[in-house]
């Protein structure tokens, strides 16, 4: 298991190095006149030249890259070109906001998917059909459209929630709940649709197994059959889908944070990319790269733990 973990970690480090190197080169290739981008059309050429010099853009790209890499290894990612905030601070401040949304969506999705999937599997009939239709709709309707709908109805018409912004949970819990609920719902719907289907199929499969019939014939209660045996068996694949969706949710958060004006990683990623804020984009590439690698490692370990064959492969 240790060899497996170390090997996966080494793959992750190599992958991260390749990603950041490519990202750095591509970003600078497309950066254009950075000083002009920052200062806008009204600045004189002399001021633009001074800005470029201050940013160290007059030195060769390769030397800039190794300088950045050296600093990055010590945790110093420089400062944003457009807000002058240290990149590390900008990312850490916003990471907890995005993770709040993503974990909130994972929890809501896990609970709802389990409820709906099991309900559909057990009840069948019209309940199953409605949940199937919901699943198809959940897949088909884009998250941002759901977000816009939620804002119009629940924030602007009914005034139950805030249409934009984010309140820290530690600052005012009620305010936090009013700002995160709609984004979490918008992020969750697509995921619920997918995972509920997975749970439904797994539960139906499990219920058809001989060991379930054996348990029932031995007088084990239906509740115990479901919770102690069927769900435990059916939960594995659903857990994998949920874990893999974590990375997808980070991407979904980019759009959702834009719609709700939430100061998370997604919002800053869009802004930094459109402005060409290379230091901030590079910091984001590293942060998101590390998250993706760690989540994948956790999934690999989980798979390896559940299935020893995966460790060998």
């Amino acid at each position: 298991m240790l060899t497996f973990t170390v090997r996966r970690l080494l793959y992750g480090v190599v992958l991260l190095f390749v990603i950041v190197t490519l990202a750095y080169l591509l970003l600078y290739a497309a950066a254009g006149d950075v000083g002009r981008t920052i200062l806008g059309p009204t600045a004189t050429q002399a001021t633009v030249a001074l800005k470029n010099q201050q940013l160290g853009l007059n030195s060769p790209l390769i030397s800039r890259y190794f300088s950045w890499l050296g600093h990055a290894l010590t945790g110093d990612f420089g400062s944003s070109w457009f807000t002058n905030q240290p990149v590390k601070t900008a990312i850490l401040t916003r990471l907890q906001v995005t993770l709040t949304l993503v974990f909130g969506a994972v929890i809501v999705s896990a609970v709802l998917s389990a409820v709906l999937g099991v309900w559909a599997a057990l009840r069948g009939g019209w309940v199953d059909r409605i949940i199937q239709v919901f699943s198809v709709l959940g897949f088909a309707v884009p998250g941002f459209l759901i977000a816009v709908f939620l804002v119009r109805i629940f924030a602007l018409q009914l005034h139950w929630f805030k249409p934009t912004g984010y309140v820290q949970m530690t600052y005012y819990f009620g305010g936090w709940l009013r700002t995160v609920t709609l984004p979490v719902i918008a992020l969750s719907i697509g995921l619920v649709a997918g995972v509920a289907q997975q749970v439904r199929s797994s539960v139906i499969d499990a219920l058809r197994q001989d060991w379930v019939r054996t348990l029932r014939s031995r007088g084990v209660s239906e509740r115990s059959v479901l919770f102690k045996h069927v769900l435990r068996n059916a939960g594995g694949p659903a857990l994998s889908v949920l874990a893999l969706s974590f990375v997808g949710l980070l991407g979904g958060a980019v759009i959702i944070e834009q719609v709700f004006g939430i100061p998370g990683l997604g919002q800053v990623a869009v802004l930094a990319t459109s402005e060409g804020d290379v230091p901030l984009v590079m910091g984001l590439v590293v942060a998101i790269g590390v998250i993706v690698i760690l989540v994948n490692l956790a999934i690999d370990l989980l798979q390896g733990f559940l299935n020893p064959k995966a460790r060998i492969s």
Partner: protein
Amino acid sequence: MFHRKWPGAAAGAALVLVGPLVLSACGGSAGSSTTLTLGVIAPATTFEAPDMNWGNESPYNQAVYDSLVQASPAGVIEPHLATAWSYNAARTVLTMTLRTGVTFTDGTPFNASVAVKNLEAFQKGTSNNASDLVNMASATAVSPTELMIRLKQPDPAFLTYLGEAAGSQESPKAWSSPTAATVPVGSGPYELDSKATVVGSSYAFTANPNYWDKPEQHYSKIVMNVFTSATTVLDAIEGGQVNAANTFDNTTIPQIQNAGFTVYPLQLNWAGLSLFDRNGTMSGPLGNVKVRQAINDAFDRTALLKDMSDGYGSVTTQIFPTNSPGYESSLNSYYSFDPAKAKQLLAEAGYPHGFTLDMPSITAAFGEATYALIQAELANIGIKVNYTDYQGSTIFTAILAPKYPATYFTLEEDPIPWQLAEFILTKDATFNPFHSTNSTVAGYLDTIQTGSSAQAATAAKALNEYVVQNAWFAPFFRPQSSFVADSHTSVVVQAGNAVPYLWNIKPKES
């Protein structure tokens, strides 16, 4: 069987979702009588005064810093940290008397030495307005309350600049701090609340308890939320989350008005063609005034305003704004849509079959349709336009190189003639890449720079008339941008600035 139990569980799960709804009903609105929540469209690039920008970033500056002078909404210069000032006869030495008893929030007293350091730092800094002090030769502290500024040449806009970023005063001690860019130390009406601020997204300010000019401190707290899309700012307006805001998009104006907000229209720019190559260095035909006039006659400005700006704005053929001494209302319609006349002018200039004109485009900013419309209207008189599309700032590098004889752009209209001239009309202006000039223009500019107010105003009108008649540009219209405010907020817009000055945004008296 189990299925009878599940509706109950589902209802329980539903309660998880509905719970917040119940809680939310207890919440209140974001704004209060002592809190101003502003929707802004740009984050603060920096809080380091020597590098700060103006325009959309002016509210950040005005919250935490005092400037040497202040401009009234109409642009008249009024005392602030400088209580009085005078020029010498040649208008090259400005002497200012400074206010006493003003301290920065770190306890450092404001005096002439501090003002000198700030001016020198701004001149050497990287604000996009750094060139505002290009004419400053030196600044000297004659005494703690007397500041003397020597100019290389008269600068009619200099006092205006001292009321903007160039005149902002920060405690010099702050500059050595590693957090200088994000933690300002000023003497202004508010202090940045770093703990409640998410840099780039939301900035919170609390009233400076020791502020010297309490009547100008209208709120106990100001929050500036950065919005990055028209939809989000509209949602915030409709949801009552802002008291006032800049908007992105005129198409949302009806919805904003339905939300009970008042719209304050601003016309800060002009959109149209800059016909840079007036000597025909790169494009021979543009050196002929009849060709440039023909280009002006080729455009149906009313249709362009409707198609490119949803009808919000006003058509014009001049680049001087309505609040400039150089403005002349008749010059809004000096050229009219007359393709037949345009073709005749081209023929008289020796181009009966038209010619080819290379121009840069930035479709990511202005859209494909804008460039297609311009192309179609010029094709109508025989001028074939070839575009090269650019991304981001590279277009400015190409324009200013100069790589193109003409370009479409939206450019600022400064109300002070000298300010406008230094941007686009003087020989070395940033947006005069071919350095076009002649004795007539130079004469008018000299009077604007060195003459009395009355002489400068007359010269500005004459210059405007000359530029229009000689078709240095082909302006289409002044697009409208809008500042909006709710029914609790009183606003007086500022001449030439995208955002009203902070002290002109007040709680409305009931």
